[in-house]
């Protein structure tokens, strides 16, 4: 029966490739990237064999604990567990509970993340290649550790299902979870400065982690290498007990949820007319009101600009670390382009709800202009602030006109480019209601091409104003700065209008084709 479930998972994976070759390409790219990381990490572990045993032990325990913790937490908020084999679909089959659980658990290894984790944790054995006994223990501990990862992921998602099943929790948690990831770079950079103190407490942390479910299996080979047989045996028993407990708890939760399926969560707060009462009662105003409502209510939109408030922090970290505060001046242009880019996948986000636009025969120009308007409501003030504040605080008000010109050019011409792009190029995005950070398998290739091209065009369009800024810096003539402002605003305005018109015309001509394209992305 377990073999049946594994074969089923394999067949489902194969069929999904057959449905869309792009998916295969995406999985291959993702898999190769992951494999590269794993090879890199395993090569690193191999080097540990020559290092001090205690150090190797510390590093391995900490790394494995981090990976295991990741498996326990990340599926909760971001990607969810791979539900190709959704336990709920097996309710009507007579499969014994342990067999179903075993099958579901092992099926996690059929798939890119599970397989890579297995390889990564199994790769620990290279660190212990000088000691055959520890090497064997590392192999067994690696496999057991990988099982622990999958089991913990299942346990946390199943037991938190009632909470994570609520729309609001997922909406909020998904976005909050990404913030530390984005700030990881600066955090590590700052932490690295205090490297001595880290080296001081890391061994103690590892010693504790070695007795928790997170690191117990990773600590096993170290015991054997040090000749601490008793401790090793105790740890093995402890680890197996942890694994058994996690599996038992998951299996119980699984059956509880299968016997009492979740009632659909209803009962959102009543809402008024919101933005529909504010914008003018025209097709254009209606599109703007709808789009603005989505910016506020649909986490996929919020996720696409979650980097915006973090960007100042990131750049501030970088600029203080590198001792060059002038770096803050790029904030305005950068945020302008980023926010304009946010509407370049608008029709993809609509998914088949876009049919309402097709059926009502709203003109393409109104559709385009409404979406730009909604985004501009917050993007324009933010861009202005990001362009004005850094030069003022840095005492470089001489550069203010040029920076302002480049920023507005980035925002306005970016809107124009995005209006054209989203009228023609759709790609698979998370569907309405899905986690905003879920990447549809295989969306990668097409999405990357479209996004890179859009970004590249937006950047190239900045060159005239940018050139004038360079001229000002070189010649110290304020005139060039004012020219940059004029050129930036005029160029941006022209491209904005042209982009909306062209995008609108394309939309009018190709609305049915666009409709079929978003329908195919389901």
């Amino acid at each position, binding site marked *: 029966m377990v073999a049946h479930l594994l074969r089923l998972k394999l067949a489902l994976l194969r069929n999904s490739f057959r449905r869309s070759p792009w998916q295969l390409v995406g999985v291959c790219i993702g898999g190769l990237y992951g494999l590269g990381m794993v090879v890199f990490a395993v090569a690193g572990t191999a080097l540990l064999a020559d290092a001090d045993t205690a150090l190797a032990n510390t590093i391995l325990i900490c790394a494995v604990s981090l990976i295991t913790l990741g498996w326990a937490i990340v599926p909760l908020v971001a990607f969810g567990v791979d539900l190709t084999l959704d336990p709920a679909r097996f309710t009507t089959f007579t499969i014994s509970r342990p067999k179903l659980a075993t099958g579901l658990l092992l099926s996690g290894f059929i798939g890119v993340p599970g397989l890579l984790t297995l390889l990564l944790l199994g790769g620990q054995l290279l660190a212990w290649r000088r000691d055959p006994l520890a090497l064997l223990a590392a192999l067994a501990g690696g496999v057991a550790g990988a099982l622990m990862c999958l089991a913990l992921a299942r346990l946390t998602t199943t037991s938190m299902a009632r909470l994570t099943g609520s729309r609001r929790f997922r909406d909020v948690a998904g976005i909050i979870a990404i913030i530390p990831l984005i700030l990881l770079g600066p955090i590590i950079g700052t932490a690295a400065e205090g490297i001595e103190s880290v080296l001081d407490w890391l061994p103690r942390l590892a010693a504790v982690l070695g007795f928790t479910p997170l690191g117990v299996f990773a600590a096993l080979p170290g015991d054997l290498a040090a000749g601490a047989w008793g401790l090793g045996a105790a740890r093995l028993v402890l680890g197996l007990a942890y694994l058994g407990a996690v599996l038992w708890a998951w299996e119980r939760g699984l059956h509880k949820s299968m016997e009492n399926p979740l009632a659909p969560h*209803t009962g959102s707060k009543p809402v008024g007319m919101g933005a529909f009462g504010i914008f003018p009662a025209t*097709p254009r105003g209606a599109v703007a009101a*709808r789009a603005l*409502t989505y910016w506020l209510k649909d986490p996929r939109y919020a996720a696409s600009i979650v980097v915006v408030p973090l960007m100042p922090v990131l750049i501030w970290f970088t600029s203080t670390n590198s001792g060059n505060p002038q770096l803050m001046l790029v904030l305005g242009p950068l945020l302008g382009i980023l926010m304009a880019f946010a509407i370049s996948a608008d029709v993809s986000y609509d998914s088949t*709800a876009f049919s*309402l636009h097709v059926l*009502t025969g709203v003109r393409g120009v109104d559709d385009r202009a409404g979406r730009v308007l909604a985004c501009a409501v917050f993007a324009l003030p933010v861009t202005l602030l990001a362009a004005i504040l850094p030069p003022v605080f840095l005492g470089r008000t001489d550069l203010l006109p040029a920076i302002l010109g480049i920023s507005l050019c980035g925002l306005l011409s970016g809107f124009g480019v995005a209006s054209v792009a989203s009228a023609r190029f759709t790609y698979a995005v998370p569907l309405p209601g899905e986690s905003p950070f879920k990447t549809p398998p295989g969306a990668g290739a097409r999405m990357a091409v479209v996004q890179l091209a859009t970004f590249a065009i937006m950047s190239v369009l900045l060159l005239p104003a940018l050139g004038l800024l360079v001229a000002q810096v070189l010649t110290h003539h304020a005139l060039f700065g004012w020219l940059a402002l004029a050129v930036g605003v005029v160029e941006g305005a022209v491209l904005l209008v042209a982009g909306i018109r062209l995008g609108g015309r394309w939309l009018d001509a190709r609305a049915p084709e666009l409709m079929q394209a978003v329908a195919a992305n389901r």
Partner: protein
Amino acid sequence: MSNSTAEPGTPALSIRSLGKRFGDKVAVNGISLDVPAGSFFGLVGPNGAGKTTTLSMATGLLRPDAGQAWLAGIDVWAEPLKAKAAMGVLADGVRLFDRLSGRQLVTYSGLLRGMDRDTVAERTEDLLRVLDLQDAGAKLVVDYSAGMTKKIALATALIHSPRVLVLDEPFEAVDPVSAANIREILADYVAHGGTVIVSSHVMDLVQRMCSHVAVIAEGNLLAAGTVDAVRGGVSLEERFVQLVGGRGNSEGLSWLHTS
């Protein structure tokens, strides 16, 4: 809104040799059909017969490979905006903007069609009332049940008082009371000069509700005309099975007999 000057006798919907293929599969194989103005027209056919594809091509959602469609005399693919103004469509299998409340969604549909705010507000309340969605009007559509979602989608198709209503599976997942309400609204609409085209699997419903019917299977039109003419004395369901064929032989499963 419905002030186009079609001559009397112009069919509400007229399609000629409409065809569509997806890859190797012919979904619709050159269908020609006239829907008389003022009729309650049922489009029936087994799963995958091409009903949704045909209706999508007639309503401007899917560009046909061949053939033409006229809505109240307006060429749907030559003058799409004019044609779309004259019809209200409930498409099957598409999402709604479900992060809006029901009231916002219906308002959105009206405003997109260029109607003024007061008319939209008045009609939205009327629609919510007759569809029994008044209490749910302030809730997000994403939290609606399947039947409520169907009803709110119907409201978005009705708001501009179209001359022709094209409804793909309007009764699916709708509870019996609401279904009866919807039937009453549609019958009233037809009695006052409108035309309704519905697709359905439920023969019984079509026989009771519709004045005309067309049978589609495997992308071909098998029969069309008044319900009485098509069924020819037997029930529509029997006639449908005769036309479409493919009734399996249930005697084959003798092991299923438990006694």
